[in-house]
């Protein structure tokens, strides 16, 4: 798939000597949703800030749709919308004026009909004449999204878009992000909520200590790194496992009612057939069975700990 953003050997060292980014290479594909996960201070916001033109890079280059973000900043910035992490917004403007200002700032002629459609999509149309100071935190965040969309960008950066947002609104935002992706907008989001990345991202990038540990298709990542568990609900509880079925990856629950077998989906032999035969031979019967997969959060924690 064609790249819309290319980050090549990008490094950023601040004046105090702190290396926020170390030789970052990243290709963002047109029309995808990519989630950048990482602990606080990992460099996610610095990476976004460099691409958007807020922070100067120390080394390397960034291309947006093949154009350099410094040499051709007008073209690249016109394509980009940014929703910042903090609720940084002029509190005294009205909602409609705030979006109109953003559209003008990005070089677009006034288009009240388009602003109206954005506000309606964000359920803010009723609040169009309210001053932003009068809005709730969730609404302010939606105004920020509206400001970022006011100039019809094709690449949208969402820096922690659902931080401090209630569950219902978070789900609304996920729906909005999917809708934007479906309309052809490329979405790059950073998040602390791994559930968020798991829910909406096509690809996952894990960032820590200014480096990208990996970038992988979400499903592939979970398939490769996500160990699976087979859980068997027993007909009769066990006090202990018979020696014939003992295995390091097999555990019996404290009440003896379930057996949990952990296996690697990538392995040539999962060992499930052997386990079933051993259980049958030992006369252990089960009434139900199910499988679970290790969550993205488990994978993330493991990778960051290993880094």
């Amino acid at each position, binding site marked *: 798939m064609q790249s819309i953003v290319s980050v090549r050997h990008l490094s950023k060292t*601040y*004046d105090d000597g702190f290396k926020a980014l170390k030789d970052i290479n990243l290709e963002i594909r047109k029309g995808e949703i990519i989630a950048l996960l990482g602990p606080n201070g990992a460099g996610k916001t610095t990476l976004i800030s460099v691409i*958007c*033109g*807020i*922070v*100067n890079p120390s080394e390397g280059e960034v291309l947006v749709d093949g154009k350099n973000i410094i040499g051709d*900043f*007008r*073209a*690249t*910035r*016109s394509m*980009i919308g*940014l929703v*910042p992490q*903090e609720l*940084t*917004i*002029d509190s*005294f*403007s009205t909602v409609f*004026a705030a979006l*109109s*200002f*953003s*559209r*003008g*700032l*990005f*070089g*677009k*002629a006034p288009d009240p009909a388009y602003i109206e459609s954005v506000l309606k999509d964000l359920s803010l149309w009723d609040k169009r004449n309210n001053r932003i100071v009068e809005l709730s935190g969730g609404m302010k965040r939606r105004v920020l999204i509206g*400001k970022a969309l006011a100039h019809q960008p094709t690449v949208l950066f969402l820096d922690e878009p659902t931080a401090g947002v209630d569950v219902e609104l978070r789900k609304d935002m996920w729906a909005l992000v999917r809708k934007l992706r479906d309309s052809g907008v490329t979405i790059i989001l950073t998040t602390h909520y791994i559930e968020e990345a798991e829910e909406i991202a096509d690809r996952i990038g894990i960032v820590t200590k200014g480096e990208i540990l990996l970038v992988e298709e979400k499903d592939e990542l979970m398939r490769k790194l996500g160990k699976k568990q087979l859980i068997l609900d027993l007909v009769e509880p066990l006090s202990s496992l018979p020696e014939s079925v003992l295995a390091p990856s097999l555990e019996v629950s404290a009440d003896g009612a379930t057996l949990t077998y952990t296996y690697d989906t990538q392995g040539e032999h999962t060992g499930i057939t052997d386990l079933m035969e051993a259980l049958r031979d030992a006369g252990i019967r089960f009434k139900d069975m199910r499988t679970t997969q290790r969550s993205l959060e488990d994978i993330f924690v493991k990778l960051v700990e290993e880094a």
Partner: protein
Amino acid sequence: MNWHGVKAIYAFEMERTRRTLMQSIIGPVISTSLYFVVFGAAIGSRIQQVDGISYGAFIVPGLVMLSLLTNSISNASFGIYFPKFTGTIYELLSAPISMFEALLGYVGAAASKSLILGAIILATAGFFVPLQIAHPFLMVLFLLLTCISFSLFGFIIGIWANNFEKLQLIPLLIVTPLVFLGGSFYSASMLSPFWQTVTLFNPVLYLISGFRWSFYEISDVSLGVSLAMVLVFLTACLLIVSWIFRTGYHIKK
């Protein structure tokens, strides 16, 4: 050129003035009126004339300059400092707008506000003293150059300041004393020779002197020197601003 961007910044700043009308326009008009009452009526009644002009009329150009200088600086410095303070500057930095275009928006709005204010103060002065403007074109030129130069200066202060104290430091401790001691309320010729010489080192003297000449054809220094000094100040501000844009000083990390 991103003219829509320039217009957006300009309109936003002008709207801020409308929202803070009391502080932006009415406040300076009231304080100017008070100056007329105190200096024009109370003290002016004891100083009959200066260089053949009634004292009340003599101080009009100085009063206009006093408001113009302080307001140009505060409008422009606040305009660029506030987005830095609140963090909304991210939008300006990520927009396809050059710093020159941003400057046009911010400084253009600050200078426009000052021009409007200057016109209102002149109209207010008309209620207290009979106004006579010998060279209206020159007067407008001085007004324009002063508004633009000091709005640029304010923009520089707004970029330099990283807290509210610094934002007020130069206007309060340097600009206001220079304006008061630059012949706003008196003619330099009324001072002793020593203080006359000292006053010549005050750049504001040249502004007020030239501006006053456009009204009454009287001045402390020649018109040519006054105009040259304004242009020197304007050029210095432009050079500093271009350096700020080149280096990203206090704007970009």
